[in-house]
């Protein structure tokens, strides 16, 4: 028995049943959909405002780039809708295959990947460049959820449960972490949380966290780029250096702070950001700072509120009402993945986290992250359709 589900049976593992395509009338979570649309709108405006210089270095215009961004948004939205129509149990069927494939991609990116901004994260396939780490992230979330729901009977068993799950987690996070420490970190945290939610023994998890901290410390010593960022963070928390404002440690974080401070309550106005010229990758890593500058405290708080809304919708409504363990775990995993990316991005810009290069889902410029965020929201929407108690949900 590979997994249990009331809507699929063991004999249909390879084939596709009629139920795989969701034909039921009830819509998906409207709040979730609206949140995504608002995020995309925010993102589009901020990206348009901040991408001009990047456009210049690429010998193109902000207008052309924003058209590209809109197309990616459209694709992501389309993917989201498609996925929301596919029964998550069908996706779950391919979790092991997907996991193995994405691990192969991760190894491939280490061997043939292209380097950008000091890290080897991109893989060029037929003219498209994408990050295999994102593929692996989704694959791992799905696979862990599947494994956890399968192993509920002997969930406290170290050999049967903990070790096989940890095998995939360590392998995937390890491969991602070689080049992208922060993504791997978030993925690891989400996996550990999933395991915790999936009733894995707290003692076993606690032991693992201790080992994880040790491993993290070891990895830290390897990447110069990463070490630098951590050092910046450390020096930045100590105090804001008022001299040497253009050079030296904590420059990026400080510029982001300045952007936030300039925004005050109502912001400097749409498209009037000045700090976009002082921040690196303002359309991506520091998009939150640009929004804070242009839309003020109201704008930045709204953004955080929307991510919090997604968190609450995802956990309190969708996961709690999911029809099976897999639905609960998958919903928690997908929700956390998206929300944590958003919070980490905001946390970096506002200086409570060290500088990492993580995008803000649906807001930042960049195709791959958008696509997989869309994919995960699609899964969430699909889970929301297969709810236990329809009265607790709003249907469109």
């Amino acid at each position, binding site marked *: 028995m590979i997994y249990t589900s009331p809507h699929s049976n063991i004999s249909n593992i390879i084939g596709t049943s009629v139920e795989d395509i969701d034909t039921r009338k009830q819509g998906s979570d409207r709040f979730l959909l609206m949140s995504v649309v608002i995020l995309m709108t925010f993102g589009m405006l901020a990206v348009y405002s901040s991408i001009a210089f990047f456009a210049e270095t690429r010998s193109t215009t902000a207008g052309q780039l924003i058209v590209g961004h809109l197309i990616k948004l459209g694709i992501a939205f389309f993917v989201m809708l498609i996925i929301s129509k596919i029964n998550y149990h069908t996706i779950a069927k391919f979790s092991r295959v997907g996991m193995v494939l994405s691990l192969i991609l991760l190894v491939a990116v280490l061997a043939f990947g292209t380097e950008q901004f000091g890290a080897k994260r991109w893989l060029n396939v037929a003219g498209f460049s994408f990050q295999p780490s994102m593929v692996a992230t989704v694959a791992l979330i799905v696979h862990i959820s599947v494994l956890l729901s399968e192993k509920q009977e002997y969930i406290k068993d170290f050999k049967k449960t903990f070790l096989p799950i940890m095998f995939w987690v360590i392998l995937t996070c390890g491969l991602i972490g070689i080049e992208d420490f922060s993504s791997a970190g978030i993925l690891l945290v989400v996996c550990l949380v999933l395991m915790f939610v999936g009733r894995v023994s707290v003692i076993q998890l606690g032991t693992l966290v201790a080992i994880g901290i040790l491993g993290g410390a070891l990895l830290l010593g390897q990447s110069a780029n990463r070490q630098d960022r951590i050092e910046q963070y450390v020096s930045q928390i100590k105090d804001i250096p008022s001299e040497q404002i253009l050079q030296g440690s904590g420059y990026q974080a400080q510029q982001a702070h300045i952007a936030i401070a300039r925004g005050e309550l109502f912001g400097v106005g749409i498209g009037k950001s*000045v700090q976009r010229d002082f921040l690196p990758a303002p359309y991506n890593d520091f998009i939150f700072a640009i929004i804070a500058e242009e839309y003020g405290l109201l704008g930045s708080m709204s953004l955080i509120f929307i991510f919090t809304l997604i968190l609450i919708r995802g956990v309190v409504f969708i996961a709690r009402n999911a029809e099976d363990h897999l639905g609960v775990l998958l919903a928690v995993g997908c929700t956390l993945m998206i929300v944590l990316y958003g919070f980490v991005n905001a*946390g970096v810009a506002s200086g409570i986290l060290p500088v990492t290069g993580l995008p803000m889902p649906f807001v930042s410029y960049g195709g791959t992250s958008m696509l997989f965020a869309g994919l995960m929201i699609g899964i969430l929407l699909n889970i929301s359709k297969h709810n236990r108690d329809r009265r607790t949900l709003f249907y469109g």
Partner: protein
Amino acid sequence: MDERTAILSRMFIVLGLILLIPTALGFQLIRINYFEGDELRTLWSKQAIDQIPIPAQRGNIYDANGTLLATNAVDYKLAFDPKVQVNGKIGVPQEQVAQLIKKLSSLTGRSAAEYQSKIRSAPPHSRYIVLERNLSVLAKDEINALNIKGVILEENYRRKYTFGSLAAHTLGFVNHETNGRIGLEAHYNDELKGEDGLRQVRRDPFNRIFEYIGAPKKLPRNGYSLHTTIDAYLQAILEDELRSGVEQHLARYGTGIIMDPKTGAIKAMANYPTYDPNFPGSDDEENRRNFAISDMIEPGSTFKLVTAIAAVEQGVVEFDEVFETPEDGEVVIHNLILRDHDPLGDLNFQEVIQKSSNVATAEIAMRMKKETFYQYARNMGFGSETNVDLIGEVSGRLAKPYEWSLVTLPWMSHGYEIQTTPLQIAQAYAAFANNGMMMRPYLVERIEDKNGSIVKQHKPVEIRRIAKKSTLNKLLPVFESVVTDSGTGNLSQVDGLRIAGKTGTAKKVVNGRYTNNYRGSFVGFFPVEDPQYVVFILLDEPKTSGYGGFTAGPIFRNIAMRIAGLDDDIQRSIKSVDEFPAPQFVKAPFVTGLSKDQAKLLLSNLDVPHDFSGKTGYVTAQTPEAGSPLNKGQKISLTLSETYAEADSASVKEGYAEIPELRGMNMRSAMALVSELELNSEIIGSGTVFAQYPKAGELLREGYTVTLRGKAKSLEILTQVSDR
């Protein structure tokens, strides 16, 4: 607890923990905005707000009559941004770039390849390629008319000297930051410069500047204007004559000063060769030097003024005393030979100065104590700066008596072993002309702000009295006798104008040895009755002759003549013209070139019988020729022709015109004649022309000016004037 409940409860624990993150984020955002906000915003102003100056306009410089000498002209800098967006695409199309380059090269005369290479060799991503500076307003309009995107035109203020090289050394010039480098521009730089205003702009990390609308501004205070004592007319005369003198005598350079002895105002100051301060870099550095204040020269005989004043005031010389100079003109003083230019025989005191005897001057000087002589030299301003308002003045060198050798006194008495600047000599003679009161020379009469209110008004500064008035009254005829037929200044005489002066001839010292190169100078003032002008002229290394009377003297005369023509006061005081005795013999007047009627009028006024061959037109030939003596009743035969034939046109150099005799003509015909020769005329008075400059028969470059002075006057005296 079933599995699901367990899972959900664990899930809510996680939810609770994760909800701490947005809470923390919210607090952090508020903290940044309200607790660190001010500090961060100050930090932002520091990095992104910049103040750039709004340049103040530099003040103008005017001459004594309000003529604009230096002002500011607008020109444009053209930069090109090849990466600008055109029709939704990045980059200016190639054909537009080619069009721009073609236009530019036709406007500036530079090759198109030069501009192309500028664009090509610019760094990648460069969005500001300077193609041309100093484009004129017209050129800017033409470029604008092309309507090519990516063209950046920036306005600049450039210093413009209205008359090119006129008074170049006095005015000086400015560097590329429009700071005065030399001359008045440098000395009055602070006044001329004004105060730049400030404008707040935003600057990004790539140093691009953005306009900041509504940002505080500090308006500039424009520079003050200088109203100088320079008289553009006199300056032009001085430069004109200095140039022709330098060219005629093949001198290395020439220096001239015209000064008002009563106030010390410098009316003109010139050096030749000169330069154009509009393009100061395009001439030799040597040409930019103002020798009048920076040259240390041994003056030679002009310095005998000191000896004369000291000797007369100390009573060591009698006017009727006779000085016997040796037959060969040489004496030996402490083993050094002192020569006169020619053996001069027996001389009285006046003749000593008039004929410039070094031997006698030395003898007179040696009757005084060296301290006494030194004191007079010192009093007359030698050895110390005049403190004229120019940069780069030197003090010359007057050794202290205890430094003197045995021969210093006799040699200094005629202008050796002392170094002076031309201005010091002019200042000393100005003091002589001003009854002994030495005035500080100056160039700026007043400084005005842009509304014309006076910021600073110069008051003439009396330095000291150099001698008793009685002494100078005794010496005045002595120095006036220099400018007579029997004096060394014989070539400096101007009819009807009383001039006092002194020639100077000095061997040049090169590397401590006297060479056979000379400096010839002349300094004089006029009219003697009430001196208005002190003129100093110096030629360095003239090749025709070393004598100042021969080289600098005629330059002085020409200048004095032209000034006299311009100055109504002097004109009034020239009484001599009327008082000349009637001529015994009439000389044949110069009538060639006149119309039949004019010739008829002229000759009948003179009572000269005449006949014409030909009916109408102009006189093309006359017998006897002009200037030959004419007996009473002798007839002049004139040949008429329909067209005015230029006399000896073949022998006249290209671009030059021979000046016809204009005297005796009415002012209108004279002017017509002058303009026919492509010359300009300058008219003083009206009626019949009775004086002209230059004289008839001289060659003048086309475009130059002939001065005509008219007076309703009996024509009889005209032939007398033409006699010289």
